[in-house]
């Protein structure tokens, strides 16, 4: 499991730096693909480790983009708030009984979309040093979050989610 976390980190950051940063020159919305590593971190591991992991992931993206500590701050914020947010929706999630890979498709989609929305909003807020920016630029945040969520879902369904194979085998 720990090796998987490290592999996720390396792949996510590498794709962000070598693929998506370059692709960002052709769009208005740079995909924050590197943050998938933060979203896919297992629920059952310790929160302290999660916070440090999120910080390292965000900082790696910041170093590649030259944004200081925006992604690091957004990742750490998301890592701290993740449990609180998902506990409002699924009781079994708050008890850490369900791992991400074993979620149903609906739950996975909801989780990916919510995470993408929260992370994108946090990045915008930290970049502008303003909470009110969310109210002024919410259409951009929504579009950006949708693009991020698309890439997150594709990656998750192809490389991470076990249920796809289990149901297909059935």
């Amino acid at each position, binding site marked *: 499991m720990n090796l998987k976390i490290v592999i996720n980190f390396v792949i996510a950051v590498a794709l962000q730096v070598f693929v998506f940063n370059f692709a960002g020159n052709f769009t208005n919305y740079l995909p924050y693909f590197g943050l998938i590593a933060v979203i896919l971190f297992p629920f059952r591991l310790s929160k302290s480790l999660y916070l440090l992991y999120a910080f390292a992931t965000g900082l790696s993206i910041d170093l590649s983009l030259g944004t*200081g*500590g*925006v992604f690091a701050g957004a990742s750490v914020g998301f890592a701290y708030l993740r449990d609180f947010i998902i506990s409002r929706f699924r009781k079994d999630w708050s008890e850490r009984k369900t791992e991400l890979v074993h979620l149903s498709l609906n739950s996975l989609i909801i989780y990916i979309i919510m995470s993408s929305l929260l992370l994108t909003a946090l990045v915008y807020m*930290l970049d502008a040093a303003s909470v009110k920016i969310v109210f002024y630029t919410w259409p951009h945040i929504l579009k950006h979050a949708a693009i991020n969520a698309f890439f997150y879902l594709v990656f998750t369904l192809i490389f991470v989610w076990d249920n796809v194979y289990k149901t297909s085998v059935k």
Partner: protein
Amino acid sequence: MSVINRLFFRKINFWIFAFLMSVSLLLTYRSNSVFQFNVNNTMLEITGIFNKPFRKWKDLLRVKRNYETLLKENTDLLNKKFGGQAPPSSFSITSARIVSRHTGAYKNFIILDKGKADGIHVSDGVWTSEGAVGVVSSVSEHFSKVFLLRHPTVTLSVKLDKPGHYGFTNWKMNGEKLIRVVDIPVEADVQAGDTVRTSGMSLIFPENIPVGHVVGVVDTEGEGKVLKVRPFADIDRISYVYIGFHPRREELKKIINEP
């Protein structure tokens, strides 16, 4: 130990989050100008809110310094005002602080903290923004003595608001708080409430410095009117005064006294 355990170790995740978030914000602040601008504005607002209650007390402590600054600015403005009038009016004005006052039924005078070293001369006029105060009678190196309007030797050339009526002030040693203005023509239409101002003719005071307002008129049966005037300047309440010097005053005095 239990306190440390409760506050720190049990909430270790929160402290890790706070530390990492602080580092992130610091890195962002250093690299992002928009972030810097917004943070600086927010800190300014917060500082302003906290400083507001203390500002009142700080301002109270600085009253004396602010007053002296304003006095200096006012002196400079007066210099420009009176220095810019048509010749021969080119007064140079200094401000001074009253260090002692002696008022009573008889000779009234004050001592100022400026003297020869500060460019003060005998017979310089002394006034405040309220009105004329007196005339410098003697000067030492660092102090000067000023006889007030209520002093038997002080005589000012004054005029009434209504044009054409000039006179002189004097004061009888009768303990009164009022001064008198004499040599007002019989036909002058003077009433209580009229303002008396310096005429500027003696070059002791600039023109139009307020002196007082008329409280009573005494008709001396053909010899002119005598006005009773209450001075505007309340010597018991003022702390700072202006002193005016005209460079041609001595020349004027000399020519007046020549036979």
